[in-house]
């Protein structure tokens, strides 16, 4: 038997209590890693943002549309290399649960603007030449069993066709992938077809994407673009793609603050719960600790034993919780990817921080009973027994 063996045996003194405490710590750290990862994802790490791209949206709300003629004016701004646009189409494929974003775009210009989306030149050619053409990621084809040449029906919610028909039909002419481990899900179709066939809002787009020559000049170019339309009926707000991602996420609320709030409440509860468990364990064992001291174990040794139990309990629970998060990450990723909002990539600094927090929690919880154990006098403790 070693000192660790004694520590381990002590944890098994009341197995039900130990396992319940372990479970509560496990859940706390599962939440910790998940919420930190989600918060970071919402803060922008989940977007594949490029530093040389700006996003131009309507000034007051992202859902306001912009005239397509803005593109020419933007193109004329110093430092602008290219401009393209996309529009939120909405719509459903067979069932509202089959969610993936659908954008009408300018075929070639859009892929030129977004080189991280990798597509066969022949597919771009086909996409450009067939007005009812659409391209989708390979993963979407696999998910729904589509193949090139299929006709994909999409039922519109925002944009019915001119004749009132809500069922749009697209010819699947190509597929694409991404050059990173991000999971794409955009259903892209021809803007010209969309604009001419829709029943309202003709000549408008959702937002523009602008490629600039020098990322260092992003602020100046953005300001120049905003200035162009300042006194127009359709003022704009220009931001880098990264800022746009953050602003988009912010519409869903301050996720970082919410995550921190939830974590704070969870950890405070766990702290009290575990502290209570440790205090109870100490009360039950006062005579035993006195016996250890009687046998010649020093005050510091006995205090370290109590502190060690607390740290071991918290670190074990923490590692199990963090490990569970790592195991669950692929499943969460699959769910998020299916929504089209990017990928859930485990935020490893949160995992590292989790281990640190587990040790800190153990020290915090174990410190008061360890201090009491350190000060325990043998004669008094034995008298109490």
């Amino acid at each position, binding site marked *: 038997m070693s000192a660790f063996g*004694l520590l381990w045996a002590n944890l*098994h003194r009341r197995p039900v209590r130990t396992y319940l405490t372990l479970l509560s710590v496990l859940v706390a750290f599962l939440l910790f890693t998940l919420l930190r990862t989600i918060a970071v994802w919402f803060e922008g790490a989940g977007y594949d943002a490029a530093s040389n791209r700006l996003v131009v949206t309507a000034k007051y709300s992202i859902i306001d549309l912009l005239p397509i003629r803005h593109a020419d004016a933007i193109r004329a701004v110093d430092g602008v290399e290219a401009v393209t646009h996309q529009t939120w189409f909405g719509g459903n494929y067979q069932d509202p649960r089959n969610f993936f974003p659908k954008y009408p775009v300018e075929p070639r210009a859009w892929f030129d603007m977004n080189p991280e989306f990798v597509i066969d030149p022949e597919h771009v050619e086909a996409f450009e030449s067939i007005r009812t053409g659409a391209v989708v990621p390979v993963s979407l084809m696999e998910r729904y069993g589509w193949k090139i040449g299929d006709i994909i029906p999409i039922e519109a919610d925002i944009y019915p066709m001119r004749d009132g028909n809500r069922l749009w039909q697209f010819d699947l002419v190509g597929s694409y992938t991404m050059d990173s481990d991000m999971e794409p899900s955009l259903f892209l179709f021809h803007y010209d077809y969309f604009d001419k066939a829709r029943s309202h809002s003709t000549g408008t787009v959702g937002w523009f994407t602008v490629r600039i020559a020098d990322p260092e000049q992003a602020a100046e170019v953005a300001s120049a673009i905003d200035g162009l339309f300042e006194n127009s009926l359709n003022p704009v707000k220009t931001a880098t793609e990264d800022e746009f991602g953050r602003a988009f996420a912010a519409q869903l609320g301050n996720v970082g603050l919410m995550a921190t709030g939830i974590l704070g409440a969870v950890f405070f509860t766990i702290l009290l719960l575990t502290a209570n468990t440790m205090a109870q364990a100490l009360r039950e064992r006062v005579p035993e600790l006195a*016996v250890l001291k009687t*046998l010649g174990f020093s005050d510091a040794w006995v205090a370290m034993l109590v502190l060690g139990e607390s740290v071991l309990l918290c670190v074990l629970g923490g590692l199990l919780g963090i490990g569970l998060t790592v195991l669950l990450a692929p499943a969460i990723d699959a769910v998020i990817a299916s929504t089209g909002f990017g990928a859930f990539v485990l935020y490893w600094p949160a995992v590292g921080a989790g281990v640190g927090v587990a040790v800190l929690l153990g020290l915090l919880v174990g410190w008061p009973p360890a201090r009491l154990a350190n000060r325990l006098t*043998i004669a008094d403790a034995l008298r109490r027994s």
Partner: protein
Amino acid sequence: MADVIELQNVEKSFTKGRETVDVLLGINLAVKEGDFLALMGPSGSGKTTLLNIIGGIDHATNGEAVVAGQNLNRMNSRQLARWRAAHIGFVFQFYNLLPVLNARRNVELPLLLTKLSAKQRRKNSETALAIVGLSDRARHKPGELSGGQQQRVAIARAIVADAPILVCDEPTGDLDRDTAGEILDLLEILNRDHGKTIVMVTHDPKAAEHASHVLHLDKGRLALEKAA
């Protein structure tokens, strides 16, 4: 034989609020190496307090306590802990075994403070258990043992590090007469055959008969000495 325990004018008092209670008053005591001393007396007479001072788990308020060549009053708590580990084996009335450890591991506990290897610690604890006749109960936890068997484990724990002095506080107080007799026989063997100096607190005159000397403590004073 040299004196292994020497107490000179030992006094002990406890303070409770504004009240001071004198528990030991001017105790003078000398115990020779290899003695088996029984301390008797009514409840509250100060027997356990005296035992605690001899065992180095409490300090005398006044006077000198020299045990195994060390003046205990001059040692701090860390030095006392180290000293106890090397010189004193404790046997308590209620055994005070750790319920989460089996018999062998309970016996092995004091050896964690030595530099012995795990293998040697295991071997020594098995030997100690064999001395008290409990080799076949090595894997049993205290809850699975009778009172007498638990006390034997406690005695094995007290002797495993080869402490020269055994300090026993009512070692038979929780046992029936037959089992108590077995424990006292075992203590006698340890005293006679293994040369352990034993100081035992007891209420039981029958238990005291196993000792070579009996001292009576009354109201904090040694009242009578009787050779057994």
